[in-house]
Every structure is written in C-alpha cells, then in structure tokens.
C-alpha cells in the first residue's frame, strides 16, 4: 500500500544498485524529478527500461548510472539526437552500454505480458527485419491452433517502475489523464512501484481519458510539483520546448554536460531547487 513520502526516502528505500528500472512516460508525464534523485543518490549498474528514452535517460546514461538499456526509440523529440546515448553506444563513454532494442509494439507487448504475469507475449511483426538478428529476446513461435508463425517477446518485469501523474488522493490512489501511454502496464508489471504527483487531493475528480491506479499497486507516492518538466502535465503545465532545444548544446560535449549536471542536479538538494537553478540559467520557458 502506498504511503505519501519524500521522494528522497522513496528512492533510497526502493531503488537499488543493479536493479532493472523503468521510468516511463510517453512524451507526457516523464518522471524527471525521480530520475534526478536516482542520479543524486549515485545509483550504479542499472538496467534502464523505457520505450522512448529521452533527456532523463540521456542524463542517467551520461552520468554512468546504467550498464544496459532496453528500449525502442531513443531521441530528443523534435530536436534530434541524444548525444550522451550516442556517445555511450558509439564510444562506450562514460561506461560501455549494452543495448537491447525492440519496436514500440514489441516493448508494449512485453509490458502487457509482464503486467499479466505471463512469460511472453505474441505479436505479428519483426519478420524480415534485422531486429531478431541483433536482439535475442525476439523469437518465432507457431500458433498451436492455426499454425500461423508469430513472434514472441519475453515479459518485462522491472524491479522498480516509476511514473509521474497529475494527482493522488490522500489514500494514495493515483490519477492520470490525457495521454497515459504505457504507464499502467509499467506499474503493474513491476515488483515495486513509485509515483510522483503534482499534488495530493482530498478526493479525485473525473477528467477526460482518466485512468486511476489504485494505491495497492504502489509502494510510495511522492509530491513533486513540475516533476515532469520539461515534458508536460495535462491540466498543469505545457511542454517546455525551449528546454528540449537548450539540451542539445549542453549535451553535445562531455565536459559541458558533466559540469551542467554537477551544477544543476548534483549541486541541488531537490527538484524545486533544481528548477530554480535552471530557470536562473534561462533554460526554462516563462
């Protein structure tokens, strides 16, 4: 059962070195505050799982947090490359990064199997592509009823999944509305789960396209206003395109990246302080 706690305590207690960790969010509600706390606490050797690694995984990879990445699309959406991700794969900096790559459909179905506690999922895809040649977690399987050849992908069951949501109620039930991506499956497939939220309400009110994840599926809920910046939280704030663009030059250069991370992330106590720090730098919209 979820308890509303400080994010620092949640990460300290629930994220361990060597864990397989999924911080999910499909453009919307990306859990930046939680990613920064993992970096601040110096976690190592993580297997990072995410369909769409973007800025936060670029930061975690560049800080040497990860030894492996399981993903389906890695880029800075609308801007270009993730330079730390590329440097790790192309040059092994700061540490070699093992990769396991799928398509979005493959990753989505892996989470579905994980949430269902089934060993694998089947889908129609991958045939004729080079992905099965480089990714051992894609294998053909014959349908026992029709004989059709399909592709099987193993379940994903992260040690910890972390999501950001708009609201929780005082009992720890968590509400997401708007684009909810893969977050429900990420939480239900995980052994432990953390949600950061914009705010805690006495009662949750209905919103269009809302899902509610009951408190029983979380181990901790932490309040982190603006905790998904520079992505957006429908009903709270817009996507900060300025920051996505500003990230490109910061991350191009190893030294520039390290000093930026030291100043703004390692040099701050929490996400609120971090936001003040990057705002002062002029990297944040408004």
């Amino acid at each position, binding site marked *: 059962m979820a308890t509303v706690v400080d994010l620092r305590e949640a990460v300290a207690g629930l994220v361990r070195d060597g864990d397989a960790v999924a911080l999910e969010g499909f453009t919307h509600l990306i859990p930046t505050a939680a990613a920064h706390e993992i970096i601040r606490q110096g976690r190592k050797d993580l297997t990072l799982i995410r369909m769409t690694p973007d800025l936060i995984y670029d930061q975690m990879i560049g800080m040497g947090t990860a030894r492996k990445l399981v993903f389906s699309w890695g880029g800075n959406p609308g801007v270009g490359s993730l330079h730390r991700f590329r440097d790790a794969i192309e040059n092994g900096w700061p540490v070699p990064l093992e990769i396991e790559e799928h398509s979005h*459909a493959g990753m989505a179905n892996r989470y579905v199997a994980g949430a269902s506690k089934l060993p694998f999922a089947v889908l129609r895809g991958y045939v004729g592509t080079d992905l099965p040649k480089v990714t051992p977690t894609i294998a053909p399987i014959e349908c026992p009823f029709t004989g059709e050849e399909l592709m099987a992908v193993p379940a994903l069951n992260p040690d910890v999944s972390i999501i950001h949501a708009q609201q929780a109620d005082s009992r720890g039930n968590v509400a997401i509305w708007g684009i909810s991506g*893969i977050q429900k499956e990420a939480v239900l497939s995980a052994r432990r789960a953390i949600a950061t939220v914009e705010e805690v309400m006495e009662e949750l009110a209905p919103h269009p396209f809302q899902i509610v994840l009951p408190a029983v599926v979380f181990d901790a809920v932490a309040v982190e206003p603006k905790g998904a910046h520079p992505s957006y939280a429908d009903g709270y704030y817009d996507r900060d395109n300025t920051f996505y663009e500003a990230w490109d030059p910061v991350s191009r250069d190893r030294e520039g990246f390290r000093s930026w991370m030291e100043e703004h992330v390692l040099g701050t106590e929490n996400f609120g302080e971090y936001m003040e720090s990057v705002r002062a730098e002029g990297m944040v919209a408004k």
Partner: protein
Amino acid sequence: MKGNGETGEAAASYTADEMMTVAASRELKDGTVCFVGIGLPSEAANLARATHAPGCVLIYESGTVGAKPDVLPLSIGDGVLAAHADSVVSVPEIFNYWLQAGRVDVGFLGAAQVDRFGNINTTVVGPYESPKVRLPGAGGAPEIAASAREVIIMLRHKTRAFVEELSFVTSVGHGAGGGSREELGYPGKGPTVLITDLGVLRPDPETKELTLVTLHPGASVEEAREATGWDLKVADDPGATEPPTERELELLRDLKARTEAARGGAN
C-alpha cells in the same frame, strides 16, 4: 473527393520542401484512417486535413485517435494531439487493437535511409556492433510498415539516404522485391508511394522496384539519378507534378506560422 482534385491558381513561388509536403498531402484520400509519423508526415497529413481531406482520422502512436491538432506537434505525444482527439487510448491498445488488427488504411512514415524496394533503416549507419551513426531506432515503424493497408514514405532525395544497401533493415517495404513481401506473410500492401523533394516514386507492379514516375517542377531526371545511391529506374515518360495551388500553399504556410507562434508563445 480525389486527392489531387483541388482547383486553383498555381502559386508563384515555393520551396522544394513545400512541393514535397503538398505532393504527399494529395496522396491522402478523405476519410482514410492514417497512422502518422512525426515531422514531415505529420505536416503533410495535417495539410491534407486542412485542404481536401477533412474527414481523415489521424492516429499518433502515443494513443490519440482522430487527432485534430491546430498546430504541428513537435513530439508524438504533444498535448495538442489529445486536446481535440476522438479518443485517447493506451499504447498497447493503439498497436494491438488498431494497427495489428488492420484498422489503419495508411501508414505515413519518414526514414533515415531507404533502398530500391522501399525497405527502411532508422537504426544505425555502419555495423550494428560499432555504428558510425547511432540513429533513434525502430519506434512504431516496423509494425506500421507491416500492418497498415498501404504505406506512404516521405524522404528528401540524397545519396546518403537513398542507398544501394541498407546498413540495417528496421522496417520492411517490399523486401527483396517481387513477391517477397507476401512470402513474409504481411497483410498490408507495403509502400505504394515514396515522395521526395524531387519527385514521386512508385513500385513497379511486378518487380516492386521503386520507379520515378513524376518529377516536381524544376527537377530533372539527371538530378534524381545523381541523388540516388542505386541505378534509379525511371518511367518511360515521367509526368510532371502539379505545382502547389495558392490555397495549398497558403494553408501550409498558415499551419507553419501558427506552429511557430505557438512555440514562441510558450517560451
């Protein structure tokens, strides 16, 4: 309504990119269910919606069905896609219940590299284990290319993009040509058209090799050949793309201006 049935005066001046977007938008018939990639495909699909195809149902992989963005999204899950959508569903639902189930008429894709049979690479340039350039990866493209009834590809014509041999096959077009796509068991027809900034290529009905069938105004067969990394097949008498009409160009520029203003406004 026919895609290219727009009437109007040809515009006085326009860029090659504008011609490409307009030509691609005309390929989308009104009322089709279209799975849209970000960037150029999204621009063309929304131009189609603003001109001859207001009834198109645009699907983005973040789970928005019937998206009606008033500005172009920078990323695949921007709030503007959900704001006026007919429905917003989860990511497994969009790939399983919509795409894999055959509910998508047209997949609208970009690419980093394409070969003569419309196979796509968005994974690596160079060897996989030690890539020269690591690209973003597959995203939704392999299953869009597999399961959409047909696929439209947009890509600027350059030798480094139109290659003899792909470093990596991320998404299957017509495989090794001829009947090889059918043999792989894919339900959709595969790429039916490739629109570039120089012209329009369509697969040969038998061999499935992409053939230059139409040139945009001002482009030449020689120019297209030079920008293609293989020996480009050209139709006996390639046609000419109708230039953008005043209306198409005005709506496209409006859309881009609104997008710029919205991005500036958010800053």
